């Protein structure tokens, strides 16, 4: 984003989970799967991985704009951009990472929710454990990008499991002191 390489397009998305009940949001970057589903389903063989395991945007001359990848990615990452008639996705800012800089999203993230560095650097400065195995039903996906979990004991993260942790069940104490309005 904010660069000529990506033509000003942000290639990550911010999901607003359910604004009616929470301010929670989730930024979604490409997880860079070891065996990417998007590439598996591409009928034009337009989605390539670099030697470092970075899954790239569809190759413009090959992409036929069918959106198979958009439908198939378990993380919902690729987007078909009509303006460019091409599937574009997070490429880990190859122009930056190839020169030793962090991708732009992880460079500017004010909360370090998006973070770029080595596992040793993470362990030295952050709490939580790093995990990169995800279950989508029967499909297990291993990614290059890690997420942070409280403990690794539970194994691969079940992405279809229901229920989320509510930090504040009754933020305004309505049950304790009654309705205010």
């Amino acid at each position, binding site marked *: 984003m904010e660069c000529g390489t990506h033509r000003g397009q942000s290639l990550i998305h911010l999901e607003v989970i359910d604004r009616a009940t929470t*301010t929670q949001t989730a930024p979604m970057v490409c997880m860079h799967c070891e065996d990417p589903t998007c590439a598996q389903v591409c009928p034009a063989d337009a989605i390539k991985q670099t030697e470092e395991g970075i899954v790239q945007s569809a190759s413009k001359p090959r992409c036929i704009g069918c959106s198979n990848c958009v439908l198939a990615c378990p993380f919902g990452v690729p987007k078909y951009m009509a303006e460019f008639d091409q599937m574009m996705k997070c490429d880990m800012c190859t122009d930056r990472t190839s020169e030793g800089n962090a991708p732009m999203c992880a460079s*500017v993230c*004010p*909360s370090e929710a998006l973070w770029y560095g080595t596992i040793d650097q993470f362990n030295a400065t952050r709490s939580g454990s790093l995990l990169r195995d995800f279950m989508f039903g029967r499909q297990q996906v291993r990614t290059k990008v890690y997420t942070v979990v409280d403990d690794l004991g539970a194994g691969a993260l079940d992405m279809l499991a229901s229920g989320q942790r509510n*930090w504040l069940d009754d*933020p305004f*104490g309505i049950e304790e002191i009654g309705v205010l309005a």
Partner: protein
Amino acid sequence: MAKTPLTDEELISRYGPHLNETPPGGWDAGLEVDRVVNTHCCFCGQQCGIKLKVHKNAVVGFEPWYEFPFNEGKLCPKGVKRYLQGSHPDRLLHPMERDPSSPDGFRQITWDQALDRVVAEIRRIQATYGDDAFAMLSGVSLTNEKSYLIGKFARLALHTANLDYNGRYCMVSAGAGGKKALGVDRAPNPWSDIPLADVVWIAGSNVAETFPITTSYIWRARDRGAKLIIQDPRVVPLARTADLFLPVRPGTDSALFGAVLNVLIRRDWLDHEFIDAHTVGFDEAAGAAAEMTPQWAAGITGVPAARIEQAAELWGTAATGMLFHARGIEQHTKGVDNVLAAINLGLATGKFGKPGCGVSTITGQGNGQGGREHGHKCDQLPGNRDITNPEHRAHVAQVWGCDASEIPGKGIPAQEILEAIHSGQIKGLLSICFNPMVSAPDSNFTREALDKLEFYAVIDFFLSESAQHADVVLAGSLHEEEDGTATSGEGRIIKINAAVSPPGEARRDGEILLDLAARLGKQRYFSYRDNEEIFDELCIASAGGTADYRGATWQRIEEEMGLFWPIPEVGHPGTPRLFEGGKFFHPDGKARFHGVPFRESAEVVDDEYPIWLTTGRVVSQYLSGTQTRRIAGLVEQYPEPLCEMHSLLAEQLGVSNGNLVTVSSRRGTITLPANVVNTIRPDTVFIPYHWPGAKAANQLTNRAVDPISKMPEFKVAAVRIEPA
């Protein structure tokens, strides 16, 4: 006549806000830029380091400045998009004069015509009505150099007592509270102290949206196991995962703090040694809090008593802790009370002058800290000196080379200036970096006031909603067009480096002021080679004051990536953490407790206006939006004001998410979509204030001010809501 020359629609169509989406020249992956300039973001008091990419005298993009220690490359959306404000189609490129007969409403004039007209009107108004009938309003998005220069310009060139600044709507309650309790108006700690705190308490600050970079410091504290307390009428983003949420009703913060002090005393979670050695007035504070039990406070604040006890326990038993407050507790008719009550909690538990300990404001505006130190305020001279103190006047007069009698006395604060314009006592106004049509309370009153001016001159880079009322518009400079320094919210003086020169005939603000001073016959006080010379004079003028910059130089600031004041001597390393060893800035070295009995806000809900209104900001907009409402990506993120309300209230009103509602106060009405969210108290609605005219939240707010700080009550008004 300072009425707008065209309709709002015509003015917007000619002067914007239009949206800028792409850098000059469009997107070009192969562009070789001419240079990359290390400077800072202009959008908030955190002053994040940023590198601006420059091509053909235009800012075309940015790079994170990873080496700058405060933000290490991090930015918020405003910082990421800030480069789009230069090369903007709305940019004012030449001076203009109001001309209702022109299809543009204004006609282009030369600089000579413009400045001569301004000077002639100043002279006419001052000769007819007296010197103080011409006022100046300024702002602290400006550098230290410009802030200092304006203080001197208003007193010696304009010769008016009536200079004040837009921090009157932002920082003054914190400043007044800090001076009363601690003897100084500066954040006590560098932000690097935050990760050392065992408890972090955020009172009335939506950190995630208004000071996004501070989030990373708080998360680092939590990575170490720190507890997080959030005090806010809304479940702001940081509150979602907080250890303790205190959902305080707008206008009751001092009751909550008082109840916490009550519990600290009852449970003896006090640092007696610290209180005895380093403070005075504990008994007065304890006396005022004696009856403020958690049960009593629960009834006032709406915060369950058990949570108040828990807050006291977290704060009182932690070895280290920091309490941060911002406009949420400060923009009240008791803003100073709220700040003093917060500071009481730090003094009672000895949480000052040590790593990871402090009670601190988070400064809002870009140079909100530095801009309020060196004579920008109606009662102030450089170094945070008092304009009524004969010794202070004599010191500054000596630096300025004038007789102390030439320096006017204390003027009236910003809101009173607008009132005096409305009542006809002030007839002329020069403003810079101030957009009261959006930022002042009761915007219908503000419009009436500006319409009554006999003459109004504005220095600005875009035609702001206030500049639309001007008789003469002087095309000034953007942040990236002039060298100088700013002082960030942590008290760190930083270097602002010019990346480009002003486009067209636009001029640097400093040059405009110097030219005006010369035409007013006061060149002898204003002969500076460059802004560095202004800074050097500022440092000497500040020497011996509380905000002491004596040992600062542009070179040191740049080389050392900032310097924390006080820097009382040449070569002094600066003072990142204040009050070490329990030494406060009052003459006896001791801090002051204050007794803070609870009192209600100026306006409270009743049968006619039964709902509390509070106002604030969103992450993608900055203050009155003059800059950020012109940047496409930021506008898309939050295009127009929404009225946040809880589903219980929406149900009562028969309103669904997205429905238009009309919100009315005793002063005005606004119609806007409802944003039905269960993240706000059911008795309170929230509207962000960044927009003008029919979308201005400040149509509803109250002009009542704090008796000490003269801060208007932006955070509490009583409103009625109906489906539109």
